[in-house]
């Protein structure tokens, strides 16, 4: 589904991604982890070309992200993305947040979009908040709306960029629960996160990044059982210590 081949990226003279190769098959959940500044957020944003890259190739469902002929907007509409800081549109109500792209991008009717949006809002347990504005919701609630907003586009895959790292601890679970349910339904997911519990429970594979490189790409059991690289071992011992 998502195929990254030898992707490299520079900010001026600084190389932030070094020959990253990674595949996510249909229905697979892949967790990307690593210390901060390791390039994992940059990597996931290259998948829907929010971050351009200079070398390598990425295809999603067989469509090249880099090809000039690709209609990027159209491709992005088929890939859901959830951001660290939610990025709900603050000037629009929850309802409008859920429907605006359905109507303006996919050309769905107001009724159809609303039906879909409200059904998904119900699924993330927030039906009661349809008419509120994002600023009136807690962080956890906002992130659940953001997931519903992405799902409303009927995505073929979902990208999560540190979806819980801006949340207070008591709100992390409600977001992870939604993500676990989504995974169990067979959604293709690429998740950048520090939540190792989530990785252990849901991920098929774990990818470990450090300094712009993919250091390790292993089955979940193997990664937690015995990471091959020293850097991954250090990282795990630090993050699992508490």
């Amino acid at each position, binding site marked *: 589904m998502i195929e990254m081949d030898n992707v490299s990226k520079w900010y001026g003279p600084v190389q932030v991604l070094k020959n990253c190769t990674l595949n996510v098959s249909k229905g697979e959940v892949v967790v990307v982890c690593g210390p901060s500044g390791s390039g994992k957020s940059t990597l996931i944003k290259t998948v829907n070309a929010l971050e351009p890259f200079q070398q390598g190739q990425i295809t999603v469902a067989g469509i090249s992200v880099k090809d000039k002929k690709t209609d990027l*907007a159209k491709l992005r*509409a088929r*890939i859901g993305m959830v951001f660290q800081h939610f990025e709900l*549109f603050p000037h629009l109500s929850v309802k409008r947040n859920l429907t605006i792209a359905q109507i*303006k*991008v996919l050309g769905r009717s107001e009724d159809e979009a609303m039906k879909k949006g409200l059904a998904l809002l119900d699924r993330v347990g927030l039906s009661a908040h349809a008419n509120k504005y994002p600023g009136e919701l807690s962080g956890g609630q906002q992130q659940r709306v953001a997931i519903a907003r992405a799902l409303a586009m009927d995505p073929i895959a979902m990208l999560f960029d540190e979806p819980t790292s801006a949340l207070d601890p008591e709100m992390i679970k409600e977001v992870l629960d939604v993500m676990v349910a989504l995974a169990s339904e067979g959604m293709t997911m690429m998740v950048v996160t520090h939540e190792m519990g989530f990785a252990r429970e849901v991920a098929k594979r774990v990818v470990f990044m450090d300094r712009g490189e993919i250091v390790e790409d292993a089955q979940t059991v193997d990664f937690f059982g015995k990471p091959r690289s020293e850097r991954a071992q250090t990282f795990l011992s630090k993050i699992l210590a508490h």
Partner: protein
Amino acid sequence: MFSDFDFNVIYRSLSYLFLDGMTFTITLTVLATLIGVTWGTALALMRLSGFPPLVLFAAGYVNLMRSVPLVLMIFWFYFLVPYIGQWITGSANPMRIGAFASSLITFALFEAAFFSEIMRAGIQSVSRGQTAAAQALGMNYPRTMAYVVLPQAFRNMVPVLLTQTIILFQDTSLVYVLSIPDFLGAASKVAQRDGRLVEMYLFAAVVYFLISFAASTAVRRLNRRIAIIR
């Protein structure tokens, strides 16, 4: 000092001052603001487009307007607009353009430069994450701007846009240099006709002050409310 102060001259000319003069001033202010904000937003988008010819044009336009006194610009446009009209319509002679249309074009085009700087700051005040989110939902550039960035930019800038409108309201008094009967022009006409300069100019000052002060107090209050919501 105030012994021969003639309130009657004010009273007698009230309908001329307000129905003619102030109506002209307010209409000019409102229309120039609407056109100015629209054209200013377009200029801001050009400036941020990253497309060199558009960037240069917008930057040049804004900097030119900001370097030259409004009075000179009023003279410039009063001279140029008939020629531009002639050029657009292709007629044989410079177009005859009324006082109102001429002032409206002047103020709309002049203030657009200032509105453009406001909108540029407004657009830049919307976080990059918002643009990324809109793009991730499949919105192209025009849609991202229309549905996500510009509505937020306007909201963030409403107090500043209103403050600029108050400045514009005061600036319109400069059409006096073209002998156009706006509020000040009307007051000045009465003043000279009846030889009552003291009364009329003091009265004009009071009226301008009350309107501007009330408006800027309202904007301040709005500002405070917005600050709380954020």
